[in-house]
């Protein structure tokens, strides 16, 4: 499935791929980066594929139910791919995923390693609150822990826009799928009830 193929089937004015390429990374003027509908559409379709894949994979291994974590990671990965690696957080997501996979396969990582160590109370109070917040924001945005404020703000703005698009797309997707499931279930299960309703 190629974005180009999808584009040709639609009545769009400009090629979104070209639009994406023209945008500069994270600059304040690139406001349309995550806001266009085409991008959201691309993301939804790719997400659908990814979820299908994850579902198939989990079904193959065991009849375990699909964990939300896997779906979330798939969603983040698709989002990062759509960023085309031009931002730090997207690269971090993709590289983390590869790293996590290899770790999980080789050994069980200790949970203590994942927890970031907190500074002791007196040391923590001495760092200025602004610096503390910068650190906290750096921890929230993947791959931006030790970043200076201006670049961190750049990454954050792009990340927020991407997250918003992700939320929108996932909401719509889940609504469609659940409604379709409802309809399918209704139609498959209760054909008798339908004439009564309509």
């Amino acid at each position, binding site marked *: 499935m190629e974005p180009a193929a999808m584009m040709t089937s639609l009545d769009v004015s400009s090629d979104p791929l070209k639009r994406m390429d023209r945008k500069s990374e994270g600059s304040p003027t690139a406001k349309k980066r995550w806001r266009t509908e085409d991008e959201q559409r691309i993301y939804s379709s790719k997400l659908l594929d990814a979820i299908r894949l994850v579902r198939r994979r989990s079904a193959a291994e065991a009849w375990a139910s699909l964990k939300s974590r896997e779906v979330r990671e798939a969603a983040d990965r698709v989002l990062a791919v759509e960023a085309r690696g031009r931002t730090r957080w997207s690269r971090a997501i993709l590289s983390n995923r590869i790293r996590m996979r290899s770790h999980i396969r080789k050994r069980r990582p200790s949970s203590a390693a994942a927890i970031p160590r907190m500074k002791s109370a007196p040391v923590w109070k001495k760092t200025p609150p602004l610096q503390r917040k910068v650190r906290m924001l750096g921890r929230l*945005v993947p791959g931006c822990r030790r970043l200076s404020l201006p670049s961190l703000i750049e990454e954050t703005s792009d990340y*927020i826009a991407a997250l918003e698009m992700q939320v929108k797309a996932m909401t719509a997707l889940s609504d469609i799928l659940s409604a379709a499931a409802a309809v399918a279930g209704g139609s498959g299960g209760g054909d008798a009830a339908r004439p009564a309703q309509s």
Partner: protein
Amino acid sequence: MQKVALREMLRLQATTSDNLSTTTTGGGGSAPVLERQRAQQRWRQEQQQEPQQSYFNETQLNTMETFMQNPLSLQSELQAFQAELENGWPDFTPHQMLMIPSTHYSNANDNGDGISRTWSCPPLVENLPRNQVEEKANGSDVIVSVRESFKKRRADKSLLLNNPMAKVAEEEDAKEKRIKVDRGETEQSREASVDTSKDTSKLSEVQKMDYIHVRREKISKRMKYLQDLVPGCDKITGKAGMLDEIINYVQSLQRQVEFLSMKLSTVNPCLDFNIDNFFTKEIFSPSNGDNLAMMGMSSEVVNPPPCLQFNPMQHLDAAACCGLDVAINPNSDPLWRTTSAPASLPQTLMDSCFHNNDGSSNWDAKIQGLYNAEVSQGRQTTFPYQSFPGNANANNLKTEN
């Protein structure tokens, strides 16, 4: 950063030689090279405060040149010097530091005579800068102090040589400073560097302030952009409040994504748009029990499916309408009885959604796009897309957007 510093030096002296940079920065000789050179530059800076400034600049430039043109002797000298540094640092007086290179030079270098003369002549530096003496205990702190003095020296040098590269040097200084701040270096070194930078002449200070102003402007510009992005940030001014809001917003977005992913994971196996399997219950029964329960409950189309009730999003209305209209819409009835019904189910959904959801146009376009994608991938066997009247509406909506 070491390479950058070295390059700066070479550029300033206008004797750039690529071989030198590669040889001097290669292997284990890089660290001692830098320390050596920085120590030299520190002495130079100290000596600049003395009357014989220009003389020493030139001579020391020459020494640096000759010094660097002889990498072999450089290596040996530097290793010896580094050993001296690490071992005997507390015992060093400036005099000793000055004397040692002279001895090394005379031994190892043909040009050593002139150099040793040069080194031994200058008046002794009375006192090391305070920060260096205090931080001599730790090896890394030594390097920190050397770096501080290196920055000072570069500030002076830029002033003295009136170099066009000075601005770059200043930027490097400020960048180094910033990087160190981010690494959480000691307050002491920071204050020391600030104090010493105040001592420098106005020219370099002005350049530094320009850079700081530029940096602050960048930050404020980006903060303003973020303000537009984050809802409800118009009233808040100041970095701290803005950062708080931003952090909260990012956290809430991430939480939403988690919630949505959980919902998506439980929603359904109808991701498989395989038409043949669509009506078979075998697909649904092995899946989650709650899924079945959901679908059983959702046979009542009037109530929105239970999963949707948890949805705090505004699209709840849209989805509910979708569910409702699919049942109520008379167009869809004949379709449902055919075997190709599942193929057109999404279509009917789309139609109904389009009719009812003029507000969330983005979502509608997205749905259309989603199913267009499906079409183009050839997953649907029968998809009378063009024949649907609703499609025209859809296209109109899209073009309106």
